């Protein structure tokens, strides 16, 4: 019982600190303390880091969806609906969620590990001794970059996933190519696209926040860097999956 109380107490304090940290970041952004050059550098690095693995995963996922979907739909004589199935699954759920998970495993881990090793090597402290705010110089650019990079990667993932489905559709299911594409375009409505797309911005903030915060408070040498980085990725995963359930419910309720 005593342990439980201590645990809950520690959790509340930890959450408070993390929220304070997020507040600091937002205050800088609101005041326009955003270093464009650093943001562009981070956009480039985060994008390069994740683009190949997200592209491969999406393409393969699109193919698998089409293969499975075609077998199932054919039993009902509705194989031309495979284009619907692929496009809607990707756009509404799979690309945003898998994209975010992969992004936190690559770019998020990179943020946490870089900031963590800078913390334990006194580079964060050195930033303060040089009269520069480390949150403004090191954190804000990473979080702002993630906010732009993840949504772009997710759209790319949707396009490539649909391409994977298209290839299976025309070669395995013998659906004419132009028909498949028309079906896809007809299937994905405004609401379908944005119900998935909006979530990517939440995920981007979540990943940037969790990974930067864990990196920033890393202590304990190289062991600490390992521990805090793994924790950053694990927290991101859990929060993405849980918040996705919540966000999906909210979006479906509001929007249908």
């Amino acid at each position: 019982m005593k342990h439980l109380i201590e645990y809950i107490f520690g959790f509340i304090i930890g959450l408070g600190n993390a929220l304070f940290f997020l507040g600091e970041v937002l205050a800088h952004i609101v005041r326009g303390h955003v270093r464009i050059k650093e943001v562009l550098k981070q956009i480039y690095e985060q994008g390069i880091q994740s683009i190949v693995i997200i592209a491969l995963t999406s393409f393969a996922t699109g193919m698998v969806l089409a293969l499975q979907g075609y077998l199932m739909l054919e039993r009902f004589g509705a194989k031309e609906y495979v284009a619907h199935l692929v496009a809607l699954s990707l756009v509404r759920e799979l690309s945003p969620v898998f994209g975010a998970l992969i992004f936190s495993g690559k770019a998020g881990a990179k943020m946490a590990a870089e900031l963590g090793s800078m913390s334990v090597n006194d580079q964060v402290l050195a930033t303060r001794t040089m009269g520069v705010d480390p949150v403004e110089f090191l954190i804000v650019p990473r979080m702002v970059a993630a906010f732009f990079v993840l949504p772009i990667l997710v759209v790319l993932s949707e396009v490539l996933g649909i391409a994977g489905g298209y290839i299976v559709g025309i070669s395995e299911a013998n659906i004419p190519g132009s028909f498949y594409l028309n079906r896809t375009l007809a299937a994905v409505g405004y609401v379908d696209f944005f119900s998935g797309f909006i979530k990517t911005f939440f995920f981007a903030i979540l990943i940037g926040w969790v990974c930067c915060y864990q990196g920033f408070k890393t202590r304990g040498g190289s062991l600490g860097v390992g521990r805090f980085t793994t924790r950053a990725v694990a927290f991101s995963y859990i929060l993405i999956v849980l918040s996705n359930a919540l966000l999906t419910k909210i979006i479906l309720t509001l929007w249908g």
Partner: protein
Amino acid sequence: MIKVSGLYKAINGQDILQDINLEVEDGEILVILGQSGAGKSVLLQHLMGLRKPDKGNVVISGVDITNLSERDLLRVRKNIGYLFQEGALYDFMDVYENLAFPLEEHTDLNEGQISQRIKNVLQTVGLEGVEGKYPVELSGGMRKRVALARAVILNSKILFCDEPTSGLDPIRSRDISDLIRNLSKQLQCTTVVTSHDVANSFRIADRLALIHEGRLIAVGIQGEIASSKDPFVRQFFKN
């Protein structure tokens, strides 16, 4: 002048600094000697407001920095150079970018002036042609020199050096010690150096202080300290 009065600090319930009183005159070099874990780094961090004391205060050039906000402290710190134990250069920047960083942040120098200034300061610390190298490609001694160059590049009148000789071989330790002394005198810096290295401390210091378990147990010029009656002080200087 730097003036510390009645400074106390506990970390995680453990007393780290107790009743520290200290004055450093303008242009003077003070070396704080002490064994590992004595509280040297923590004391130095208080001198530039990187940590807040539990009690007591720190006055730098007439300004009490104890209760300044982090925003005001950032402004104060522009005028202070700090050499970290391991250098703490940004490892994602090469030497040139590391040295250019404080200049770009706090001066209006153009690119040509920045590059000239970097060349000069590297020459002062005895390095040439390392601008394009990353910190990991430098030896420990070279990294410390670059870090020292970064600490003085804004012509700060105050210089803090945390264990400048730790991790270096005897010859490089002597070189960096002499370099710090010469640089400090040349730039007329008020300088505080921490160290556990007695011989080199005597080379650098105008005045010495000995810290043990978070307390200053002796302060004075070389002769005074070396002839102290205190058993711990005698013990410390024997080996």
